[in-house]
């Protein structure tokens, strides 16, 4: 199956946070890093680590008690906010911390591989690709 995924190149990231900024503004109309679907971790000494869903492992999909998480036709893991009961089991089950929640917001959120961050990145640290799952 072909899936869409955001490829991260940590060595190119300079920590400018433009990806975080565009993501939180696009999806929550708020410039707030805590509302971004992508996270930039500062490893110090000029090194950064980008955290974003790899669209492959499906731990969240397996854990969800309402089956609110599914794979879309475009091959992306998406949350159906109507079915979600906000238990946050998916947040806890994500092995890389790519499923997010914001205090008192009803539903958790994650990257849907739209590519807005990749288009904004000044250093090509992010790229939206289509690939065969598991490849």
């Amino acid at each position, binding site marked *: 199956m072909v899936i869409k995924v955001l490829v991260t190149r940590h060595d190119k990231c300079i920590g400018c946070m433009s990806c975080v900024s565009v993501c939180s503004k696009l999806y929550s109309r708020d410039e707030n890093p805590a509302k971004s679907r992508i996270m930039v971790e500062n490893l110090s000494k000029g090194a950064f680590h980008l955290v974003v869903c790899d669209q492959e492992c499906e731990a969240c999909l397996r*854990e969800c*008690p309402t*089956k609110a998480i599914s794979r879309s036709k475009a091959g992306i893991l998406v949350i159906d906010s109507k079915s979600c009961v*906000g238990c946050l*089991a998916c947040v*806890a089950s994500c092995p890389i911390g790519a499923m997010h929640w914001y*205090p008192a917001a009803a539903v958790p959120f994650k990257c849907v591989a739209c590519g807005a961050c990749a288009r904004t990145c000044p250093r090509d640290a992010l790229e939206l690709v289509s690939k065969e799952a598991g490849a």
Partner: protein
Amino acid sequence: MKKIAEWIYEKRPVRRGYNMRTLVVDLGALSLAVTGEALPEAPGWIGEKAVTPEMKRQFVGGKGFGLKLLWDGTRPSTKWNDPENEIVIAMGPLCGNTNYPGSGKSLVVSLSPLTGVPIDSNVGGYFGPFLKFSGFDAMELTGKSPTDLIIFIDGDAGLVEVYESPEDLESDTHILAEKLTRAFAASESEADLASVAVVSAGRGAENSWFGLLNFSFWDRRRGGCRVKQAGRGGIGTVFRDKGIKALVCRYSSLGPDDNGAADPAAFQRIGLKLHREIMALDEGQSRMRTTGTAHLMEIMNDYDLLPVQNHRFGQDPRGPELASWVWRDLFTQGLPDGCWYGCTLACAHAVDRFELSTGPYKGQKVCVDGPEYETAAGVGSNLGIWEPRGILEINFYCDTYGIDTISFGTTTSFLMECWEYDILNVERTGGISLEWGDWKSVCELLHQMAAGKGLGQVAGRGSKYLSTYFVERFDADPRLMKDIALHGKGLEQSQYISKESLAQQGGYYLTNKGPQHDEAWLIFMDMVNNRLPSFEKKAEALHYFPMFRTWFGLQGLCKLPWNDIEPDDNAKWAEPSKVPEHVANYRELYSAMTGEPLSQDDLIRQSERVYNFQRIFNLRVGHGLRKDDYPPYRAMGPVTEMEYLSRQERYDRQLSEKQGLDPGKMSLPEKMAATRKYRQAQYESLADAVYVRRGWSKDGVPTSEHLVELGMDRPELLEVVEAHLQPWSEYQPKKPSGG
């Protein structure tokens, strides 16, 4: 189905955990409509009753509300099958939240057919949370209808409808629950099916005294109904006696924070913390997510605590044949199985496509819910059954017939022991052979019980009834019957060997409803780790743990996420057996829900009020004194020579170390008599210490001063206790009743 009545109510959102109202349904009044007579206007057959601020303060919710409503609705003389006996299903303020694991529990309360005193049973499934979000903190069912009725609460529309149950509608849950789910779902879509929950019993509940209630939930991954049980004390029997075929609730708009929490973000934060703890640590701790409570099987066998042959022994070389890895392989799906949303401990496992080999559904492939530890031990090792398929067969039929596996297991093991001693034989059983391990015969007994025929019908009245019946009918030795019929107040004991732990004997028998392990499980603290060396320490544990654990029942919570998962650093804290970090979680959750602070002392006080109320309720119906708190000797020590000999080294050592006797110079009967005398005296001292700690008289009656201290000096309670209170020094022992 023919609709005979309907009632529209005002829908209101839940606020800070409460609706502040109860739904009351009178089956007796409703039965008028069946015969075509005009129903009285509401509240004649149905209505809502306010939950007053005082009721909320004193009784909190859940089991507290259930007991309060049951008290108000019954008289001291009310028996289980009188119309005024009630079934109350009540939820509690934290029930239904989707963030903290183990938050979907309903508490069901009624006067028990087995004991005559109030029973309370804690159950999962979706009915309770749906009922709560439909607008009610509790549902009170009173009266009795000669025709079977189905009550439907439509939480989407704010409507209650009553239907006459079609005569040909099956009673057995695996058929009934699924049929009704489909009948009352708005459509056949998965979301609509998952919005309906059913409470039902089964044929066995119609014909035995330990009938249970099955609470359904739609399993989206299996695409079928699953059930969890309000198992103990025969509430299903009362349900069918009242002419209730089923309760159905529909609630389609479940979302985050339907409880209306004061601080929903705190719920998310604390819930997430526990989710993460569970996911990181469960596999290395209790393996609830993969094996459920069946993980206890080999632990109990290793520590000589697994019931074998009516609790004669605690260990068997065949123990590994029922070990957790056997069940883990049998459990299917391999995905989290929660009985309410947001429970990542998810212990409700099942075996799919199990082919039945006996009974009315022989040859069919079914989904078996479980087995949990109590079932695997109770109808497995305790009956000498070491074949998993035998246990699965009994498990399935008990569930669908609406029969409690614990009472069934303990009663059947008693019958099997009677068979071994020739008190029963083929003539007396009507042809059923009750050899240890013969699971097909056990199934035959179970099918008879469900059909209300033969030995099964008599056996369905429980261990207490049978122990007297065998004396009267078969000239059995009354002392032996009393010693080996394992019940307290009439309720069959659950499945841990308590003989070698005095504290656990108290945990089982110094209880309100009878020997159920939900009040205190102290075997490891007492027997294995020796943390409770004095009577005072035991008494403190038998105060703290029953009170703390009562709190789950007030809130609508499950006990398992409290200590079947523990923080990584739990052992570093003072009193690790209390799991202090999780206790702090509960206090925070309560405050986040209600907006009111809750100290550690407040938490225990909330429980103490209800616990003492329940004790006084027992007194009110004639069973709440010291004489009602004694175990049968099987729960305390070796009844038979073979039991003594199986642990001879231990018992001989205790004679010399604890009593200064020389076992080498004593005959076996002398050694057994000395052991018995010593252990019974120890239990008396334990009861004394526990009663003092609980603020009770030597006869086990809560004192007026203690009620004042608790803020429970309600006139109706003082009236009951004052009729029984006497100074400690004037107490005269009475003959133990029951056990």
